[in-house]
């Protein structure tokens, strides 16, 4: 949408009320307000809301109302991560106002600037920092206005508690009186001074999230709970094999199920009904026949396929010294690591509501990127972008791109076909089978040591699906089936980062063999690529430490020079009470106990994190039990201490789940792991004791906490298992069968050597 009024014209009170009233994502911080009532107000609004969406304008992000309260328009959204409180905290601190006086609107393309997808740990680091700068610009402007009004130099004034007042004391003027419901008409000033962190009163505090009370009392309106009047319930029938063509649909097969009817657009087939249960029954009863396709490699064939190709290119990511020559000259260690295809496996299957009538489109979605989705909907539905509005509502956590955007496209197709608003709710099997998947990764590692036990040479050779250059978005299922043209290709996130050792080594080479394709449609999944890369790099580091006969911590520290890295590494093992000695421990028979750790400097320039854990391995059953899980974490300036902790806990437990249990199973035709028993995740009895140490660095820029702590978990676990029983796990997930098989292989190998 283009801004209605450009420049510094005052936004009338009516315009503003309209803008913020229609903003149904408005959440009153700290006040108990029914988000249901607000969410219901969303419908009916169209694109002409009369507010600038320019991310270079203060008015893009802030409106100060006559009553002195503030509305914050954030392009970044809260995915269960706490941004809904953290970003207002940053704004409150810079503006000089109580955070309870700030309302936040998130991810509404009619109201919020496009700040890019909420992905890649950028919510605070980029989104929040941009809004902080807008707040600092606004504060300086408010001080400037007050200086004129009070006839005093700006330098003698300060913004505190929602007013500008003389530093020396005396009466101030409230923000509402200074600018209430008028535009700032100002560009963001990159030089607007930020407050000194030593005086922070809001940033850093563990302020409670405004949505938790509503969530635990059933009042919060999720995407899945949202409805509009006259809405139909839709279900989409996916093909029995990936890429199959629809041969026939027997519409008579659903006769008598309420008013359910079929919508068919080429190979896209769905059912709609007034009643949701009727839609579900109809989707189950509908007889469809499909061509049989067998174009997949199958989960058991992925590894071999990754070696075989077809490849698109090779790329050298890092080259220092001459790793190949050094490896050829010395005694080298080799190992191969594999990470399987995984699902985002959201607790709530994806859902969307779309209303395509009167040549306009209104879409409600839990997308990570409503602004991007807006463009997609416009393109697919052949509508001008400015008549499309996408509004964010919380879904179940997505951890990357799950099926939310697909569900939105499904709903748009069904709404256009029926002329009614349509809600599409994916079923459990839809989500497990059809969400875009985390891509598989294969890594060949080679290393050699110096005579005194340091890393001399290191080579990482990755086999990875290559993301299609400048692909605007993950191609969506519904439009593809409906025969609507869209840019094709694959999307993965930045999966080749952190393949290098973070430790000193004379000779290093990191290369990647880029595969042309992926086994199932991929997308970004939490900490894209870096979970597997850290698994390989930090497990292999442990293999080198063991070969050198050194304690794994001491071995790492001798090669680490970054002070912040050293700090988290030391703190993580201190939490566990680490006793230095080489691995493996001398353990007898039966249940073995061990400890392991791993370290990560996220993307080589962001958050520092180290994870250490203590495990028990039952040699008989192959069961791994994590007893204690410790993490030290440095993401620079901490905005909300409790929200950061929650993110760390979530990263640790989710990745423990991915490491112990998760692999998407598929044959030549389709995914077969379609529920929670065929795709199990971590359960309560497996949850370990957790010890978390957050390093706060108020003088450093704030970095992301949404991904980094996920990455060291698999290696720390593999290293602990090795320490416990001498078995090296190089393929995830670490299922009981795999542990037992590795145990047998080790015994055979030992016998052969003896």
């Amino acid at each position: 949408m283009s801004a209605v009024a450009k420049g510094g014209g005052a936004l009338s009170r009516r315009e503003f009320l309209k803008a913020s009233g229609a903003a149904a994502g408005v959440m009153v911080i700290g006040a108990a307000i029914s988000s249901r009532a607000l969410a219901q107000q969303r419908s009916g609004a169209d694109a002409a809301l009369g507010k600038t969406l320019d991310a270079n304008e203060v008015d893009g992000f802030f409106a100060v109302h006559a009553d002195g309260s503030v509305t914050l328009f954030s392009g970044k959204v809260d995915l269960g991560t706490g941004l809904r409180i953290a970003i207002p905290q940053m704004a409150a601190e810079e503006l000089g106002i109580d955070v309870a006086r700030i309302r936040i609107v998130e991810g509404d393309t009619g109201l919020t600037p496009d700040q890019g997808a909420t992905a890649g740990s950028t919510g605070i680091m980029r989104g929040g920092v941009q809004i902080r700068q807008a707040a600092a610009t606004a504060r300086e402007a408010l001080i400037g206005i007050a200086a004129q009004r009070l006839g005093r130099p700006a330098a003698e004034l300060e913004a505190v508690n929602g007013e500008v007042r003389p530093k020396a004391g005396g009466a101030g003027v409230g923000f509402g009186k200074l600018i209430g419901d008028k535009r700032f008409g100002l560009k963001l000033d990159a030089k607007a001074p930020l407050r000194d962190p030593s005086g922070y009163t809001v940033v850093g505090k563990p302020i409670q999230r405004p949505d938790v009370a509503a969530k635990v009392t059933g009042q919060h309106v999720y995407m899945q709970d949202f409805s509009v009047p006259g809405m139909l319930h839709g279900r989409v029938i996916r093909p029995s094999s990936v890429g199959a063509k629809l041969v026939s649909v027997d519409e008579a097969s659903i006769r008598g199920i309420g008013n359910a009817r079929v919508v068919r657009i080429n190979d896209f087939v769905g059912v709609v009904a007034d009643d949701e249960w009727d839609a579900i029954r109809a989707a189950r009863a509908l007889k469809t026949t499909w061509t049989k396709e067998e174009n997949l490699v199958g989960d058991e064939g992925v590894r071999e396929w990754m070696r075989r190709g077809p490849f698109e290119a090779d790329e050298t990511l890092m080259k220092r010294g001459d790793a190949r020559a050094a490896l050829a000259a010395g005694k080298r260690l080799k190992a191969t690591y594999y990470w399987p295809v995984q699902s985002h496996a959201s607790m709530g299957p994806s859902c969307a509501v779309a209303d395509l009538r009167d040549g306009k489109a209104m879409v409600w979605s839990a997308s990570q990127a409503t602004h991007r989705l807006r463009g997609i909907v416009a393109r697919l539905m052949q509508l001008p972008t400015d008549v499309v509005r996408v509004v964010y509502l919380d879904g179940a956590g997505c951890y990357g791109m799950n099926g939310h955007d697909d569900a939105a496209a499904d709903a748009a197709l069904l709404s256009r076909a029926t002329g009614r608003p349509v809600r599409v709710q994916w079923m459990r099997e839809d989500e497990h089978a059809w969400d875009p998947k985390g891509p598989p990764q294969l890594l060949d590692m080679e290393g050699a040591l110096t005579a005194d036990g340091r890393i001399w040479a290191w080579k990482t050779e990755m086999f990875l699906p290559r993301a299609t250059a400048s692909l605007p978005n993950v191609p969506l299922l519904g439009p593809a089936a409906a025969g609507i043209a869209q840019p094709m290709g694959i999307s993965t996130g930045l999966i080749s980062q952190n393949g290098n050792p973070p430790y000193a080594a004379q000779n290093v080479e990191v290369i990647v063999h880029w595969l042309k394709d992926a086994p199932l449609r991929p997308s970004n999944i939490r900490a894209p690529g870096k979970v597997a890369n850290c698994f390989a790099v930090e497990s292999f580091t442990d293999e080198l430490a063991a070969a050198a006969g050194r304690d794994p911590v001491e071995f790492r520290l001798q090669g680490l020079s970054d002070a912040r890295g050293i700090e988290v590494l030391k703190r993580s093992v201190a939490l566990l009470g680490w006793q230095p000695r080489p691995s493996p421990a001398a353990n007898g028979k039966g249940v073995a106990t061990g400890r392991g750790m791993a370290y990560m400097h996220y993307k080589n320039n962001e958050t520092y994190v180290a994870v250490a854990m203590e495990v028990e391995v039952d040699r008989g059953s192959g069961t791994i039990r994590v007893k204690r899980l410790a993490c030290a974490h440095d993401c620079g300036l901490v905005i909300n201490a409790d929200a950061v902790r929650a993110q760390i806990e979530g990263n640790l437990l989710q990745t423990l789940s991915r490491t112990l249990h998760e692999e998407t199973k598929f044959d030549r035709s389709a995914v077969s792991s379609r529920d929670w028993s065929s795709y199990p995740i971590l359960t309560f009895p497996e949850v370990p004791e957790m010890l978390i140490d957050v390093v706060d660095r108020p003088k450093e820029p704030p970095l992301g906490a949404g991904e980094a702590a996920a990455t060291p978990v698999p290696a720390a676990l593999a290293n602990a298992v090795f320490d416990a029983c001498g078995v090296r796990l190089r393929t995830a997930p670490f299922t009981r069968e795999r542990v037992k098989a590795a145990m047998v292989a080790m015994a055979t190998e030992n016998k052969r050597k003896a």
Partner: protein
Amino acid sequence: MPTYRLSINGEIRSVAVSDPKQPLLYVLRNSLGLTGAKYGCGLGQCGACTVHIGGKAVRSCLVPVSSVGAKRVTTIEGLGTPAAPHPVQAAFIAEQAAQCGYCVNGMVMTSAALLAQKPRATLGECKAALAGNLCRCGTQHRIERAVMRARDAIGKPVEKRAAEDAGSKA
């Protein structure tokens, strides 16, 4: 259309459905506007849809509406509100035991039923009771803390409980 009279959160509500096998979950969410119970799997595998029937935690996605009869149904909305939360809900707020919170209905309802039955439940019993409740965000540790906090709070005078909850977070 068959019509059923249900006892929901202390009120008698009448609902007409097209199919007697319609799970209670959809009746609650669509006919009665009680969207606190969530659809997660429809298979009894995740717990997101948990409600109390006759005081027991059950999976509403597997309960045909025709089988409910006169039994008392309590949903999370009937358990407590933001202004007057149940001790379990108050403990979940104090511990901020939700990330996305999609699973939290099941967590709250299952633990409330557990503590009603076993007011002195141990951490191990709490883990066992929640073993069939899945959380993808990795909030389990906080949920355990919340349930233990609720256990300790239940039995204390209400004013003391409220004061402690208020003081537990800055």
